[in-house]
């Protein structure tokens, strides 16, 4: 019995990359005058099934970036080669995601961007690794996405651990600055990976900083009724309410909170489905007022971020984090392609690994990958002020001043 190479595996990455090199050699700046071959990039998201909203938003963001890059003359180091999007649908299922990777591989994709959800990302990054296919992960916050030693995987956004750590750090700053009005905390989270992961970390960390967690409520997806959860919030009267849910549940929860006139000192979401959503702010302005959220967010000081916002809204879409995260991911990849000077997969992986890309629209600073995780990636804390979403922490990116404790809201 032959024991195969244990760590996955530089060897496989390299064999796969060799195959990629053969296919990709056409990408070299070619004969004078001829249009260079397009570089195929897989854009893989769950555009059907339960996650289709996020998937569609993600695809849109990626396409915006590709259109812009092509309009600006493509990849210059490859003679202006255009990026050709190979659109793929994971149907909100990991197994379909993995099958789509095989298809993208055979269609000659030089790299893949996606796939939004953690469960899908675990499957797609692994499948791509077999072919040495570079995989830029957009969101997929579960930490295992980057802790399996896959050489082809580069996550642009922050993971759960980083997000919760930052959320706590910002929360402490906000609370301290106001004279520590909040002591007790209640957590209401959805049951799957991101909500549960967040709740575990919060339960371990918050007590160290003097907070008392009075109750943690885990709820199903979907939850049809939040009345009882609100009853318990009413009974516990926590100073701080920390929700972490998908958008649909967030809407029902926020609505029930308002119906029962529950008003803690602050609602501080972490990766909250609604609190950093323009859609939520527009459709539920009263329920949204003063809610804080620690989440993926664009850098409000960057012109490109605001230009993209305008473009997105012109299409009748909301400017959600899926849009600007994927937009940035494609630019990150384009920068790597520039430096790789060809569509060979190993060259792209090397270029990504040494990336210092900072032309994204996120508050991240230069990109720097360590073991596939972008070290610059961080969430920010936002607050809904004057029917708009403002960054309040870290102060370096702030576009508004925190209002805390929450003033009396219009009932």
């Amino acid at each position, binding site marked *: 019995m032959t024991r*195969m*190479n244990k760590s996955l595996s530089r060897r496989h990455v390299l064999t796969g990359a060799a195959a990629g090199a053969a296919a990709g050699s056409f990408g070299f700046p070619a004969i004078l005058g001829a249009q260079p071959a397009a570089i195929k990039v897989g854009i893989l998201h769950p555009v059907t099934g339960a996650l289709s909203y996020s998937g569609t938003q993600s695809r849109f963001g990626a396409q915006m970036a590709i259109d812009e890059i092509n309009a600006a003359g493509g990849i210059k180091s490859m003679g202006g080669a255009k990026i050709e999007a190979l659109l793929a649908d994971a149907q909100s299922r990991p197994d379909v995601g993995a099958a789509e990777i095989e298809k993208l591989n055979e269609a000659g994709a030089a790299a893949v961007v996606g796939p939004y959800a953690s469960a899908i990302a*675990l499957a797609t990054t*692994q499948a791509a690794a077999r072919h040495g296919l570079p995989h830029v992960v957009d969101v997929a916050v579960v930490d295992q996405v980057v802790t*399996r030693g896959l050489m082809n995987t580069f996550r642009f956004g922050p993971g759960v651990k980083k997000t919760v750590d930052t959320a706590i750090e910002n929360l402490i700053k906000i609370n301290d600055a106001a004279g520590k009005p909040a002591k007790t905390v209640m957590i209401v989270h959805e*049951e*799957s990976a991101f909500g549960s992961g967040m709740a575990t970390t919060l339960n371990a960390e918050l007590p160290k900083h003097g907070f008392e967690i009075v109750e943690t409520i885990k709820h*199903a997806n979907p939850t049809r009724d939040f009345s009882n959860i609100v009853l318990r919030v009413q009974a516990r009267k926590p100073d701080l309410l920390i929700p972490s849910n998908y958008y649909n549940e967030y809407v029902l929860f926020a609505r029930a909170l308002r119906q029962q006139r529950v008003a803690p000192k602050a609602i501080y979401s972490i990766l909250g489905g609604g609190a950093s959503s323009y859609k939520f702010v527009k459709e539920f302005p009263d329920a949204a007022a003063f809610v804080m959220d620690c989440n993926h967010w664009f850098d409000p000081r960057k012109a490109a971020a605001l230009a993209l916002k305008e473009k997105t809204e012109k299409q009748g879409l909301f400017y959600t984090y899926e849009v600007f995260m994927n937009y940035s991911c494609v630019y990150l990849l384009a920068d790597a392609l520039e430096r790789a000077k060809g569509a060979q997969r190993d060259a792209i992986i090397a270029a990504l690994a040494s990336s210092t890309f900072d032309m994204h629209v996120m508050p991240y600073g230069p990109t720097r990958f360590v073991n596939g995780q972008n070290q610059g990636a961080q969430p920010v804390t936002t607050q809904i002020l004057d029917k708009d979403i403002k960054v309040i922490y870290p102060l370096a990116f702030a576009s508004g001043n925190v209002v805390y404790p929450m003033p009396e809201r219009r009932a």
Partner: protein
Amino acid sequence: MVALAVPYVLRSDFWLGFLITVLLFAALGMAWNILGGYTGQFSFGHAAFFGTGAYTTAVLHIGLGLNPWLGLATAAAAGGLVALLVGYLSFRYGLRGSYFALITLAFAEVLRILANSAEFTGGGVGLYVPLDLGIANLQFADKAGYYYVALAFAVLSLVVGWMLERSRLGAQMMAIRENEDAAQALGVDTFACKLKAIVISGALTGIGGAFYTHYYLYIDPGIAYGPGVSVEILLVPIIGGLGTVFGPLAGSAVLHGAGELARRLMGDAPGLSLIFYGVLLVVMVRFMPEGLMGVVWRIRRRSETQADA
């Protein structure tokens, strides 16, 4: 023989992956067919056995370092055990038809909710099998390895079905399907017979779950126990032909082929390919009410009558 040579001829990992899925679901469809097709007990809850198999091997492998190959066997045992429990409770109380269908669905949901809450199943976070390539570990660098495992599983299921069809137990199962009361009157221990059918079915389904775990290396309660799994499994033999040996294989090939065709034909707009797939499903039932094997029979019968004339 042809099947064994496939990975040497077919150089496409995509199509190899496609075949692995087809074989996996052919085997699962056969497992369902033993209970639903031959014995006439429609289950909407085969996810209960699939998920149990998937979780058993995952928990034992991650927690106790159990070898995944042995995991396949323990998954079969666990799947069979859950099937015994479900079967005992439902057949003991004489549930048939849609009542049986719905109680299996409910059992699968109960297990899904438990898996979501229990500590050792990782709750909603699910379980990750660590990446560690090696044949001993049931993790292959090359897709061909998975292909052979799936092929072996499909052959196993088909052989079990084929042997059952020719056995006394199989005859009793079919008697129950045709008329349970009459079978009982003829001295068939229908309760025991149905229990045997569901246990065989559950054990095979459990193996399928375990294969899924080691192929994709990640499971969560929705993937393992979700109603989608149950539906996907039962579609296969119904499309292929209930109570036939080759129905599940044909059904699996056609269903997944149709899904792939839909994706290739209908382009990138979200939803279009699934619309096409749904229409195809309805059309297939409209024109092939007996499943694919029904069509095969009809053609054969027609050619025989022509030969006679």
